[in-house]
Structure formats: C-alpha cells, structure tokens
C-alpha cells in the first residue's frame, strides 16, 4: 500500500466517520469531529507564523543578511511597537484592565470605518448605475434578430438597440427594484385610504412577493450546493478511493 492509498484511506474513513452522525449521535462522529478541529487549529497556528508573522513582520523588523554576511535589507525596528499594541488585545480577559483592549480594537475599527465609505460606493455604485435601463423601445421588432457572433458590428448594433422584448424585460427589472425598495421605506406613511396609500401598499406588497421569489431562488441554490458537497464526498469515497486506488481501475 503506497502513500497515496493510505492518504485516501484516511480521508475515506474520516468521511464515513462524520456521516455516521446521520444514523445518530455517536462517539465515532465525535472522535473525527475533534480530530478535524485539532488538525485545523494546529495547522492554522503554524501557518500564521510561517506564512504571515514571519514574512510580513519578523523578517522585516530584524532585516536579512545575504550569504556573504552583508546586510541585504535593513531591519525596520519600529515594527517592534506592533507587538505591545497587539498584546493589549488580550486585556479583554482582565476585568480590571479590560479598557486597555479598547485601544487596538479602536485602531482597527477606525481603519475599517475609513475604508467603508469608499468600499460601499465601489460595491453598489455600479449596481445603482446599472438600474437605469431604457424602458421605451427604439425598434418595434419584438425579438432581437439572430446575428453572427463573429460579426462584431452586428453584435454591437443589436446590443445597443432596445427591442420590445428588451424593453419589457427592463420594465420588469425596474418595477422589481422600485417595489422592493418601497417595501423597505418605513419612515413615510401616506394618509390611510388615499390613492397614494393604496398605490404604496400595492408596491410594498409586490415588493414582498418579489423578495419571497428571490429568497426561494437563493434557497434552491443553497440546497443545490449542499447536494454538490455530498456528491463530491461520494465521488471521493467510491471512485477515487475504492474504485481507483483499491481496485486499481
């Protein structure tokens, strides 16, 4: 039995061990669960030092020497100040001095908040612009004609023409955006019984329905993803391990 087979066998046994939970709560499941947590934690601790702290902090702080002994990079000792700032975070466990932990937390929150203004615009700016869609056709053909994808001029012409079907599609899109947004406006209440009130209620109600449809689609994709995870595990156990590694197909 070679190394690859042993590796695959360990994975297959762990997979089956974790799936025993489906029968009922049992010790085999607990063993593999704890093993997984231990491995993940152990690996993370080592990787954080080797991948992160050493290269990004320690090496830059102490500098490095070439094989001739000459310094290749100078040490940047102000980085040493980061250590006490980081350690202040652990004062969160002290009842008497937990105020100290607020200093690094405050620094982090300040840095994060500063970024968020620009981040929000970068994320949603494009989407807001994308909601401005033409809802009046400029060509009274219902569907866009088929064009040769190689003919870039034709492709571009079709892309920039609003056919009736395109306009309808855009109209549904714009209506969805407006109705969903109106569902979330709580600070304004029109006079009960008025026309505006009826219109508002209708829009908000449509928004709720459309949101439910959206959530349904999201739920469907969530289920699909969970199935994909199961299928992959089955592929691992039956095909990669049993069929290929053990039976040598």
């Amino acid at each position: 039995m070679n190394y690859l087979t042993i590796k695959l066998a360990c994975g297959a046994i762990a997979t089956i061990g974790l799936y025993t939970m489906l029968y009922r709560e049992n010790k085999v499941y607990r063993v593999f669960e704890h093993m997984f947590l231990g491995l993940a934690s152990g690996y993370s601790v080592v990787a954080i030092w080797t991948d992160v702290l050493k290269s990004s902090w320690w090496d830059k702080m102490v500098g490095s020497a070439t094989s001739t002994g000459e310094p290749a990079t100078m040490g940047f000792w102000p980085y040493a100040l980061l250590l006490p700032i980081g350690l202040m975070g652990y004062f969160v466990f002290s009842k008497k001095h937990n105020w100290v932990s607020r200093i690094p937390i405050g620094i982090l929150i300040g840095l994060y908040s500063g970024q968020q203004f620009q981040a929000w615009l970068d994320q949603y700016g494009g989407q807001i612009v994308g909601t401005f869609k033409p809802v009046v056709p400029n060509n009274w053909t219902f569907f866009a004609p088929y064009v040769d994808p190689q003919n870039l001029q034709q492709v571009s012409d079709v892309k920039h023409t609003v056919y009736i079907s395109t306009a309808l599609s855009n109209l549904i899109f714009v209506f969805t955006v407006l109705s969903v947004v109106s569902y979330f406006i709580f600070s304004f209440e029109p006079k009960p019984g008025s026309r505006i009130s009826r219109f508002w209620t209708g829009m908000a109600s449509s928004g709720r329905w459309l949101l439910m449809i959206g959530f349904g689609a999201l739920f469907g994709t969530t289920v699909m993803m969970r199935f994909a995870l199961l299928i992959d595990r089955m592929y691992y156990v039956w095909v990669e391990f049993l069929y290929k590694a053990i039976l040598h197909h």
Partner: protein
Amino acid sequence: MSKPTKEFNLGNLLQAFPRRGLFLLLFLAATLPLFTTVTLPNKPWDDSIDFYKNLVALQPGDKVLIGSDWTLGTRAESGGEFEALIRILIRRQVKFALYSTGDVQAPLVARDAIATIAKDEAANGQKLYKPFEDYVICGFFPNSEGETLAINNNVRGAFSGRKDYPENGPPQDVLQSPVFQGIRKISDFKYLVLVTPSNTERITFQRVKDTKLMFMVTGVMFVEDHNYYASGQLKGLIGGVKGVFDLETIMSKGYESIPPLPGKNEPGRGTKYYPALHACLGLLLLAVIAGNVGMWLSRKGVKS
C-alpha cells in the same frame, strides 16, 4: 393508559417516511450516477461564456492574479472551477500569481491542485508549468480588507517579503519570480480571478477597482453575484456545479462560434457531478411532493 394509535392511511405513510430511509435514497442518488457515462445536454449561461472568452483571448506571457480562498470543504464546486481555470491558463501559457485572504489552508490546497494539473497537462503534451517560473504562490494574508486594499494600491508592496519555492531550490522572494517581471501595479495583471466560497468576493468588489474582475463562486453565491455581472462590474462569472459544467462543455465541444480549447479535454468534475446533482434534486422534488400529498390526504381523511 394505552397510547392512542395513529390511523394507518396513505397520507400518514407519505408523511412518516423513515428519515434514515430517505438518507439512504439520497446517498444512492448521489452515488449511482457517478458510475454512468451520461452527459446531459447543456446551454451555457452568458456569465460562463464571457468568462471563457476573456480567458482564451489572453496571449502567451500575459499575467493573471488569482485569489484562491477555497479549501477541500468546497472541492465539489470551487475545486472544479479552479481546475478548469488552471487548465485554460496553462494551455494559453499565461503566468499567474496566487494569494489567499480567506482561509489559511487555501494556498496549500491550491499548490497541490496546481502541481497535479500541471503534471497531467504535461503528460498530454502541454508545457510543464513550473513553480516560481510560471506561477508563484504568495501565501495567506489574514486581514482580507486591509490586504485586498493594499494589493489594489501597491501590488509589489503588498507581496514584498513573501517567499515561494522554486523547483529544487531554496525559497526566494516572490517578487524575484518571472511572474512579477513587468508588474508595477495591479492593472499590469490582465484580470484578477477570484475563486472563493466566502465573503472575500464582496471585499474584493469593494476594494479592487484598478483591474478587471472575474469570479468563480459557489452556487449559493451565484444568484447575488450575477447582479454584479449584469451591471458590468464583473467581466465573467462561474457559479457552482452548473458553471463548472458550462466551462467544461465549452472547453471540450465549443459553443456556437467558440471553438473547443485545443488539447485533451477529459470530463471534469462538472460533467461527472451534473447527472448526480439532477438525481438528488429529483429525489428532493419527489419527497416534497410526497410530503405535501400526504398532508393533503391526511387532512381529507382518505384511507389508503
């Protein structure tokens, strides 16, 4: 006092199907189609077509930055996406740098996957992709928000000090790699392709604006991320097993005027998993229908 016995009828039977029996059926539905060679018909989504077209339009020697945040927990979707991506890049001879801000295990998982794919591609007549020379792994960065912003603002500064392993050599600074030759700012990379099952996709939207973005996400994330593709913020998007199947379909058979990808295209994870996914979804639909019919029959009081 004796317990009141539940009246036996079809409605009760449909609603009381044993849970473990259902699990068994699910395991069978997820397993049996894996041993068949059925390939389902497919019409790729526009998101996937654009993703593929953008990648194959790259020229040999172009550089791409990859954010890889997946680990073995999402191998079904992200693993298939990553494999298709690397195969395309290798065949187009595009060099790439890889980093992770989502999971500390991700660089190791990516390193193993790239090595396996590179060997496989070399065995099929493609160039053998060598670490450090053709691709470089910059490692894990714990603060996703800060690091992603740093990559956008000063890509060389963000990766300085990181080391990777050339073949049979001691670790060297990643900036010495041929991948980083000519890279001064992030826009020198043709694309940033992010393979992620986590919220790093949102963080990347928010902070990277100086190069074009393409994402490979899970099925759950696809619905939301499609909005970014529709608004033009993303140049291409691959979502879940369907996205992988789209890529593999275009790679092996081509689509409309798009020719297949030159080289040996064997069925990948998307092609293998898609029939099983349909079997599982079929079972789910049956179970939902059976449960609802059972409830309706019980309420009507119809005896079996």
